[in-house]
């Protein structure tokens, strides 16, 4: 609305009309109150915004329209503003005649006579729409935050799955590699055994022909026969590894298997000045395993431990129950019987530790180890669905952990 404001002072009446028209046409409710809060003027817009005519508000108790929870705050703000003679803004909920709560932004201004407050002009602006929009926005924000949280969680679980998948993939590659090595080994073993036979029989034949020659010839031939025997040991190890012999599983007390293996290696321990300390738990549940093959595993582990301590030392053998943990199914750790064999040697360098299960890997001097011992052990362990882990102890020495899931876990 364009309002022409002439240069010269307009007549009083015209000015009154101008002000009235401004007040009548404003979309806010304008209330004039006395310093003690009594309304003396309410603009006509109260009809549209609150459903009450100005007279109704002036005659009744205006404060009754304010929400119970906002009333004390409104009064306090009014008094503080009167004391300070300043302008304050406050948000209030007022009830429309139709029962709906409207939210108003209320600004008060004091009309002063010198420093004495005479009247306060309160302007109530209906901000319900804006507040509703804000509320919706906030809700949307909260939802968005929740979704983001869900998304982050999903992403984390996806990453975990991915890592597990990757680990499984690596294990699979490993398994495939071991299998192909096994197949290769069987082929190689066959191809090597035939020429070994030729050499052995050739030596036998020559031995008879050269019966009367000097001792050196016999010595050379004996060395050659021994070499054939050694080569054959390697090949046999390969075949043991490559032929996945079926297991004869029975319900066995793991402690018995360990005690048997210790008995089998007793002489070796005595010779190597190795002391065995046992701490075998009495309450272990039985495990399903092939007694003979598992004895082989423990004998091998014990001999390796003894060889790790050329100056002698101590092997600690411990068995215990592992109740398992059942957190997320992805990291489920079923109950198991665990055996630990710890030696007092120097441990194994990390780089070597990664390779100990590889076929033909050995730290022993050439000719003394086939490098197939641990490979065969792992093969047997895998056939059992058990797990073997080698780790260096913090104080030196190597800890071999064997873990057998117990029958209750399998069911």
């Amino acid at each position: 609305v364009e309002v022409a404001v002439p240069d010269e002072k307009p007549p009083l009446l015209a000015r009154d009309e101008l002000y009235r028209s401004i007040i009548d046409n404003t979309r806010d409710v304008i209330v004039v109150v006395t310093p003690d809060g009594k309304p003396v003027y309410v603009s006509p817009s109260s009809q549209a915004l609150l459903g009450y005519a100005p007279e109704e508000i002036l005659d009744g108790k205006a404060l009754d329209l304010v929400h119970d929870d906002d009333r004390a705050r409104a009064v306090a703000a009014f008094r503080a503003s009167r004391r300070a003679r300043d302008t304050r803004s406050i948000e209030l909920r007022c009830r429309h005649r139709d029962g709906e709560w409207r939210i108003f932004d209320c600004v008060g201004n004091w009309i002063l006579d010198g420093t004495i407050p005479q009247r306060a002009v309160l302007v109530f602006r209906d901000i319900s729409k804006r507040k509703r929009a804000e509320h919706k926005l906030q809700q949307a924000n909260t939802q968005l935050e929740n979704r983001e949280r869900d998304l982050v969680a999903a992403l984390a679980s996806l990453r975990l799955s991915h890592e597990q998948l990757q680990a499984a993939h690596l294990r699979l590659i490993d398994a495939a590699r071991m299998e192909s090595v096994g197949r290769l080994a069987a082929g190689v073993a066959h191809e090597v055994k035939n020429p070994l036979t030729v050499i052995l029989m050739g030596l036998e034949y020559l031995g008879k022909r050269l019966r009367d020659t000097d001792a050196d010839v016999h010595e050379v031939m004996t060395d050659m026969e021994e070499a054939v025997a050694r080569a054959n040991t390697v090949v046999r190890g390969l075949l043991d590894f490559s032929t996945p012999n079926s297991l004869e599983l029975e319900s066995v007390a793991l402690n018995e298997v360990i005690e048997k293996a210790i008995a089998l290696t007793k002489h070796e321990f005595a010779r190597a000045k190795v002391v065995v300390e046992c701490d075998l738990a009495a309450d272990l549940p039985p495990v399903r395993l092939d007694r003979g093959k598992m004895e082989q595993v423990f004998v091998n582990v014990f001999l390796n431990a003894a060889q790790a301590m050329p100056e002698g030392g101590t092997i600690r053998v411990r068995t215990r129950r592992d109740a398992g943990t059942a957190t997320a199914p992805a990291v489920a750790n079923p109950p198991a019987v665990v055996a630990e064999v710890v030696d007092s040697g120097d441990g194994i360098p990390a780089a070597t530790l990664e390779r100990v299960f590889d076929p033909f890997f050995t730290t022993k001097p050439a000719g003394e180890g086939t490098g197939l011992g641990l490979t065969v052990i792992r093969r047997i362990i895998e056939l059992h669905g058990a797990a073997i882990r080698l780790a260096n102890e913090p104080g030196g020495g190597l800890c071999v952990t064997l873990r057998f899931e117990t029958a209750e876990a399998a069911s």
Partner: protein
Amino acid sequence: VLLVDDEVGMTRLLKLNLEEGGGYDVRIENSGRAGLEAAREFRPDVILLDVIMPDMRGTEVLERLRADPDLAHTPVIFLTAVLPAPGTNADVGMPGCIGIAKPARAADVMAAIRSVLGDASTRGEARRDERT
């Protein structure tokens, strides 16, 4: 003795050892098929048989031998790289057969021959008894 093995060097050496060391009459064949034909013609007292041969596996040779009435009872010694422990006689789970793992000495082979020929002679007599 009929010796069937595709490892030519080994058959030659085993023949030499068996002939010189044990006085056996040895015939060599280096394939399963040729071994079967030779068995029909040569009628050996004992057959030394390799398992893994290119043309025919030793087990198949054995099946065909057993299907031939004239050769059904000829003792067979498997000489094979498939068995794990070297030199020892092993029960290979087939009647009238034992196994020797390669690498083996001629002495092991001769011991095995002696043991199966002992069995075969008693069986042979039992057979004759049945006929009469």
